[in-house]
């Protein structure tokens, strides 16, 4: 079985802080990581490989050249090979253009049985590229996969997470599945794989020519949405820190909420 995992290198937004004086983002020193949902996507693929060793797992990403470090991490976790779609032409892409580029990369890999992606990346939180990619490849998809029940006879049965429960869905292969964190616990990198990833594994870098895309279909040129402006949200004015004994504070907060007719 041939599996492709889509992954993205993202800044660890949990580490992003706001400059309390200027109200701007402090990006310095924020580490870049493998997007958390994508780690679940990779783990799901590796689990299939664990039981069917003839499975190959390839990781595909789009991003700047430094994303190769993240792809080496994927190889150290157990992926067989990794491909980075990287070119100036891909810059400024919205999700629509991103999905075109990644779809072209996957097409170049040939016939694929199953594609896993993370539900969403923590820097954009859009959850759009997975289904858009599927639509471009003409494949069926299921998002928010919280459990892969079985993969056999050219079909996969998965549980799709809903806000108020889940549904059990059967879908034919090939297809695209997007993973949520409840799907699994990503494995650690193993020492031999880390050594292999650092010393031997080569991350192939493809540009628009390699994946046979017209520059007009990539990046900013091919993005229907444009960012008009971005800004840091205005901080809500700091309120009042109550003082006194616990009972005094409790009485005071109840009185204040009463006064505002909130209770």
């Amino acid at each position, binding site marked *: 079985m041939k599996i492709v995992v889509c992954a993205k290198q993202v800044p660890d937004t949990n580490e992003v802080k706001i400059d309390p004086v200027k109200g701007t983002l402090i990006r310095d020193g924020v580490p870049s990581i493998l997007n958390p949902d994508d780690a679940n996507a990779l783990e799901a693929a590796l689990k299939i490989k664990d039981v069917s060793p003839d499975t190959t797992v390839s990781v595909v990403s789009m991003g700047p050249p430094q994303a190769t470090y993240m792809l080496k991490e994927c190889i150290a976790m157990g992926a067989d090979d990794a491909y980075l779609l990287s070119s100036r032409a891909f810059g400024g892409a919205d999700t629509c253009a991103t999905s075109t580029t990644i779809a072209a990369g996957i097409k170049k890999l040939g016939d694929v049985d199953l594609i896993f992606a993370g539900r969403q990346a923590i820097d954009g939180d859009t959850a759009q590229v997975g289904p858009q990619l599927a639509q471009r490849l003409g494949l069926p998809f299921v998002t928010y996969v919280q459990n892969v029940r079985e993969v056999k006879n050219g079909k996969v049965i998965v549980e799709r997470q809903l806000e108020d429960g889940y549904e059990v869905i059967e879908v*034919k292969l090939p297809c695209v599945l997007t993973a949520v964190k409840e799907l699994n616990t990503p494995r650690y990198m193993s020492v031999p794989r880390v050594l292999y990833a650092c010393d031997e594994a080569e991350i192939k870098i493809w540009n628009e020519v390699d994946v046979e895309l017209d520059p007009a279909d990539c990046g900013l040129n091919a993005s229907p949405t444009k960012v008009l402006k971005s800004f840091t949200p205005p901080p809500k004015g700091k309120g009042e820190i109550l003082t006194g004994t616990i009972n005094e504070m409790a009485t005071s907060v109840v009185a204040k909420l009463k006064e505002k007719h909130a209770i």
Partner: protein
Amino acid sequence: MAVKIIAEKCIGCGICEKNCPFEAIKIENKIAVVLDSCTGCGVCVEGCPKNCIENTQTSMSNVDISLYHGVWVFAEQRQGKLMNVAVELLGEAQKLASEIGTEVCAVLAGDNVDNLVDELFEYGADKVYYANDPLLSNYTADGYTNVVFRAILKYKPEIVLLGATHIGRDLGPSLAVKCGTGLTADCTKLDIDPEDKKLMQTRPAFGGNLMATIVCPGHRPQMSTVRPGVMTRAERQPGRKGQLIDLKAELKFKFKDGDIRQSVLEVIKSTVELAKLTDADIIISGGRGLAPTPDEGFALLKKLADKLGGTIGASRAAVDSGWIDHSYQVGQTGTTVKPKIYFACGISGAIQHLAGMQSSDYIVAINKNENASIFEVADYGIVGDLYKVIPAIIEALDAQVA
């Protein structure tokens, strides 16, 4: 139409006619002819044995945007019940439509959900586009994409709004690619540019650290998913009527084998009621500070919630620790809430959490650490042990009543 037959190569075998999901190809004089109902889906291109069909890639770019009118709301329903977010979107759609000077429409898909049509009129829809089919009973990406896409193609709305639910966030991207247009996810604010009437879509990025306003200037429709709980619900006007458009008749669609590639085998409801958090006037949320006795902690929060007629919520830390179900999670990756009062108990106030609750009317923060970021957004802050503070608040409430 988006595909072209290369007449010199076509042998009139008819495979494309059979393959076409939309009955948009006919063989005439031993040559395939593409009809107006072609959606450009490309199924015929892949299936042609002689490679004589070309995809001409007429995505809707450079479309004549003056042809697109009306604000559409995807009327998401589950098991025949209209989702709250659909009513919120109808409220927002009325605001947008009046600024543009156009109509509000709802697009509804399901199996015998006729009763929802009147509900949608009463919530402000001028028109309801209704696709009624047994195969639309449960949401499937293929089934819903197919029918909503064809409705968009035919009726050309300028704006399409969907709830940013697990269904809307599945359907939205799929539709956007089919329509060749852009989609902005998880919007928290929508405005109309007073000059050119374009939709300005504002959304949080970077885990809520940054807001971005996004436009879709050259493509139609302008599509957004909107977070539940953010927009103001439409007022219900009993007896209000509108125009019903039966999509099945108008689009002459019927599903064929293989059109819907996902099949829903089973739907399992969790024990938690979905609407509780977004509807609650008062939410008492707990976080890491409930340790080391989280069960006791949530029981205490529940006691306060019951006293105030509210419900309990949780931070991601509490959910990730396995103390409480994901459906209680408030924040960027959970539910966005804006109750009258939000009690944050033992929650430090990670930016992702703040993004989901900071528009609450009043925020009360209880935390042992006086430097916790939650105090930055709190109206009233109490530095102290929640296990002592909450019982004191319950006592103070009892004293008020007495």
